[in-house]
């Protein structure tokens, strides 16, 4: 077994190298997209463009595919991600929206961990009895709720009832402090501004809860099934026989072991959480890349922005890949059975 720090470097390095073909694959697929759209992509991309732009575009499409692809990757690496129909550059907008989306996703992940995992423990503990059934109905309800329906109900019916805001990051438009991270709560905390922190958190609650509720099933279900696997093991029985309280046995001894499997939740839910932001950010007026994707795709009947749509899809894919990488490395760190070499 190799578990020394130098082996860890090999372990992480190997995974980073494995990323390269996947990233190349993602760029190839998004490149195919740019060619998939229509008989005459130029006319569809630039419906209001002048003759020179159209001619430039046509010229690009007449190059060999490999040249076009290399040019595309080169542009991607240099932050030249194209522009919308009204000539607003894509890259700065996505870069500006990314922190807000990350904040929303992390908040939802936090809620999934503090609510979803204990629910999984309760379900496993009472497997086959009514608390188990209630938990199952709860997480399958989240699964069965279409994202927009959950978001719309939360924003229009629940928000006024609870007195929570349902639009944007802050009540005021411009906060009176410097925004270092562009994550609303973090910035307010960094500035040490308590009223604005409370305001930011109250704005985050509903979108994050909706996003967490819809994705709760995976966390709860995985905790439940890995707890069911751990509970009959001898070390749990011996902890119980030592006279430890049931709470201590379950949450300290059993959960600790089953959480190793649950780290994979991060990788499995990344896609669902990111996809959920598209509609949730739109409904709650959250200034992230999900709302950007909604508009770029032509949501609500707007004119689609192809460059923006392709770029944002690629960013989401990279997000999923990175989440899986982190989950993979975490799993390797936590599970002593994994050989790092």
């Amino acid at each position: 077994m190799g578990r020394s720090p130098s082996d860890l470097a090999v372990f992480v390095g190997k995974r980073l190298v494995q990323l390269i073909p996947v990233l190349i694959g993602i760029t190839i697929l998004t490149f195919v997209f740019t060619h998939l759209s229509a008989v005459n992509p130029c006319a569809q991309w630039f419906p209001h463009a002048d003759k020179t732009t159209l001619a430039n575009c046509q010229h690009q499409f007449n190059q060999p595919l490999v040249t076009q692809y290399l040019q595309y990757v080169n542009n991607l690496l240099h932050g030249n991600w194209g522009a919308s129909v009204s000539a607003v550059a894509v890259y700065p907008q996505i870069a500006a929206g990314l922190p807000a989306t990350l904040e929303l996703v992390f908040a939802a992940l936090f809620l999934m961990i503090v609510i979803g995992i204990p629910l999984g423990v309760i379900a496993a503990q009472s497997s086959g009895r009514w608390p188990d059934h209630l938990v199952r109905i709860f997480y399958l309800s989240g699964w069965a709720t279409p994202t927009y329906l959950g978001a719309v109900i939360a924003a229009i019916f629940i928000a006024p009832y609870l007195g929570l805001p349902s639009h944007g990051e802050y009540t005021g438009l411009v906060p009176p402090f410097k925004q270092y991270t562009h994550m609303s709560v973090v910035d307010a905390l960094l500035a040490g501004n308590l009223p604005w922190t409370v305001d930011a958190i109250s704005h985050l609650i509903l979108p994050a809860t909706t996003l967490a509720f819809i994705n709760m099933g995976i966390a709860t279900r995985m905790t439940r099934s890995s707890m069911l696997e751990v509970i009959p093991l001898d070390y749990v029985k011996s902890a119980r026989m030592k006279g430890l309280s049931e709470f201590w046995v379950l949450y300290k001894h059993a959960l600790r072991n089953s959480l190793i499997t649950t780290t994979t939740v991060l990788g499995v839910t990344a896609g669902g959480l990111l996809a959920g932001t598209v509609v949730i950010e739109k409904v709650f007026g959250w200034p992230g890349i999900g709302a950007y994707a909604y508009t770029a795709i032509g949501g609500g009947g707007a004119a689609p922005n192809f460059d923006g749509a392709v770029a944002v899809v690629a960013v989401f894919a990279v997000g999923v890949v990175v989440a899986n990488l982190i989950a993979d490395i975490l799993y390797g760190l936590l599970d002593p059975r994994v050989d790092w070499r």
Partner: protein
Amino acid sequence: MAERARRIGRSAILLWRVLRANPLTLVGFVIVVLIAGTAVIMVSVPHLLTSYGVDQGTVDYHQSPSWHHLFGTDGNGLDIFSMVLYGLPVDLAIAFAIAGVALLGGGALGLIAGFWDRPGTAGGIASVVIMRITDIFLSFPSLILALAIAVSLGRGVWQLVVAVLLTWWPFYVRLVRGETLAVKHLPYVMAARAAGVTEGRIVLRHVVRNVLEPVIVYFTLDIGTVLVTLSTIGYVGLGVNYPTTPEWGSMISYYQGAGLITSYPWTVLGPGLAIFITVLAFSLLGDGLRDVLDPRSRRVLAGNAGRSSTSPAEQEEAAEEVQQEVLELPTNVPAAQEALS
């Protein structure tokens, strides 16, 4: 004839045992049967359930829900409940088409990648290529990829099906490959090979039959997921044309876009409730079936019920389960995800 009757009888008994194991599974099964029955009636004799035709206006405009109009009416006098009923076979047909084609196509690729995976052979190369392409597709959140494809293809039923289908097959490749890998080294497969059965026949007669069970369970759960995804695409405005084609997601998008949610909420909540109940029913059934098939929870279920009968057949089954578990023991995150998803 007698043999066939006995086999059907045995399947019925098995189904009843599975349903009895968890009351929620039974509830899900009953609702699914009711939904299927309603869909059949709506296709053949719709006037049994509603007195209105598709897209047939009444003189009741903007009525709130009543006994006469269960889900109220819209501004054109359309009875929302009838439109939801007409949408049921449309949504179910699209969902079954997508999940079914994904199962057949993805499943075939998964069988190839799982069964002929020896490195160096033609099969090994094919297997690597299939899995790499699958991985790339899996790194995109499927909803977002489907949205991007839908925007390239334009509006319509066929475009919708193709867009979701293109993102749906990789899940079946991963699932079937995992199951094939677990099955193909089992003694009975080796015995068949030793007896001189051809490779193709082994795959069709012995592997497929044993892979089928988890795939059907996944398929049941998947119908719900497809429905939710479809309706989200409809909501974003890339779905079909309502009210000519009564599809639930497009229906919600239509009324939501007209700003009816606050003044006439039933126009949006009616189809939303239909999606919720349908998806919940399929999920309850699928989740319950998955529990029964999961060897870990099956053992716990049996332990709880105190029914530890040990007929030779059951012992054999248990040994097989242990062997499967050993083969499926997650040593890294992708494998763990495979086992759990």
